[in-house]
């Protein structure tokens, strides 16, 4: 399905490169022992750059919440309305949230709290993006 294709920048390139290898990674500050997503040039808590590293995630999470878009400002999404906007809380650190459309799940039928795992779908032939599917 066509969707806006993320344009990696100097900070985000490792994340998007990892997606293309079907790996979900986030930043971690070794000084604070805090994960952060989206990635930034420095740790949000201590401001450190040197202590930021990329770490693997379990790729598992839970559905944290859901709303339904009926009137998007993003032209590419308008033909698909209404569609799910779902928040995923990462199992490793539930404060870390990802976005999802939960493909295949009808609007109003998103089971908040359900376990999910990451999959990767094409935003373009050159770029995979993380999506999520219900497990169990």
């Amino acid at each position, binding site marked *: 399905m066509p969707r806006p294709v993320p344009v990696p920048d100097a900070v985000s390139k490792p994340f998007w490169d990892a997606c293309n290898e079907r790996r979900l990674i986030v930043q971690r500050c070794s000084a604070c022992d805090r994960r952060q997503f989206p990635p930034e040039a420095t740790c949000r808590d201590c401001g450190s750059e040197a202590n930021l590293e990329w770490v693997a995630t379990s790729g598992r999470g839970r559905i944290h919440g859901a709303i339904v878009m009926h009137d998007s400002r993003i032209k590419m999404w308008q033909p698909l309305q209404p569609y799910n906007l779902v928040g995923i809380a990462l199992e490793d650190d539930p*404060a870390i949230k990802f976005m999802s459309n939960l493909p295949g799940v009808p609007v109003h039928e998103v089971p908040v709290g359900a376990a999910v795992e990451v999959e990767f779908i094409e935003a373009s032939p050159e770029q995979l993006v993380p999506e999520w599917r219900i497990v169990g």
Partner: protein
Amino acid sequence: MGELLRTSEDVGIWEHRGKVALVGRGHSPVYRRWDGKDMTQTLGALSILAAKAAMEDAGVTPDQIDGVITCPGGQSNGALMGAPWGPGRPYFAAPYDTEDGLSKVTAEWLVRELGLKNVKYVNSDGDNLFMMVGQGAQAVGDGKCNNLLILYPAGNLEGRYQQNESTNAPGPTQWTNPWGWGMGIAYPFAEYCRKYGSNHDRMAPFILNSRRNGLMVPWGYYALHEPYQLTTEDYLSARWICEPLSMLDCDRPVQASACYLMTTAERAKDMKQKPVYVLDYTMSSNRPRSNFETLEDTEAWTDAMARKVWKGSGLHASDIDVFNPYDGFALFTQYFLEAFQWHGVKRGEAHDFYAGDISVEGPHPLLPSGGNIGTGRTRTAIFTDCMEQLQGRAGPRQISGKREIALAGGVLPVNAGWTVFSSIPDA
């Protein structure tokens, strides 16, 4: 972005508490849009009307004005409320030969077009309105000027704005647009309803009450152009924008301008209107813990705002007679109400409170201004109402009982300025 002041949780009592006062307010008529033709309805023309009205209200002449602060485009960071006029459309004869006066109004433009000769403080870097009132109060308190015009233009041209036609998602949009994310204000509201066992329908009494109050604001959009009350059925059948956010939870973009005159408490004594003293202002700028705002973020941020207001003003929830929290999405007003615990409303109780008597005649007159939902996206109704309530000139909106202290603020849970006003300087 204008300088954010008094942001610390350890904020103390404001050094100029009660020494600065609002003494005049002026509103242009509110239009839905500018048609690109009627030069009496440009944003600049409406700003001149508003500024003249504010000076007239205070009994101050243009020569006495020595400061002007604006948030030129209506949004933080110099962003425009709506779309720019150019570059695809030709500009007009001066003073409408640039964007200034059409899609924004700078302090410099206003000084020039009003022929203000004695201005020593010119600031076109006001943040959004809610921060700018505090920035203006600080400037007067610090002696940078004595008679300050605070101008807030809100423009709206034909067509839809902020439409994104890109097939790429650069910068911050790389984290949102691949999933079509938007209108994230709906997300914590959905969480709220789940957490506290409520639903969107229970917003109806609040929306209807705001429209009713707004119809009593003579310059407001609805009083001027759609002077009828909403029904519960209207609200419940409004189309979804991002469920559970419907069209009637959103404020109506408008073409309007408003202006306030702020001065020192000493000078205020001799002016036409009863002074409305500024006791405190505080500002907050937050970021979600992760990729989007959650209810946990929202409640933590708004709790911190309330703590700051109480520390900064030395007051408590029970002191607030007039409460005008921002509503320019109606879905987040409840977080402010519950954080400040106005009339004892605690987390999860706002919708029960809405179901009671929140009318201006009743015991719990919430948002007596009607806010944006009742007047359109001028954003200024809440400040004007605080003034008018404390001065006793709110007409049919005048609340009963004690009216010494007023609290107004916005713009969002993520980013807000709050100002405490009083009819007495040492309250």
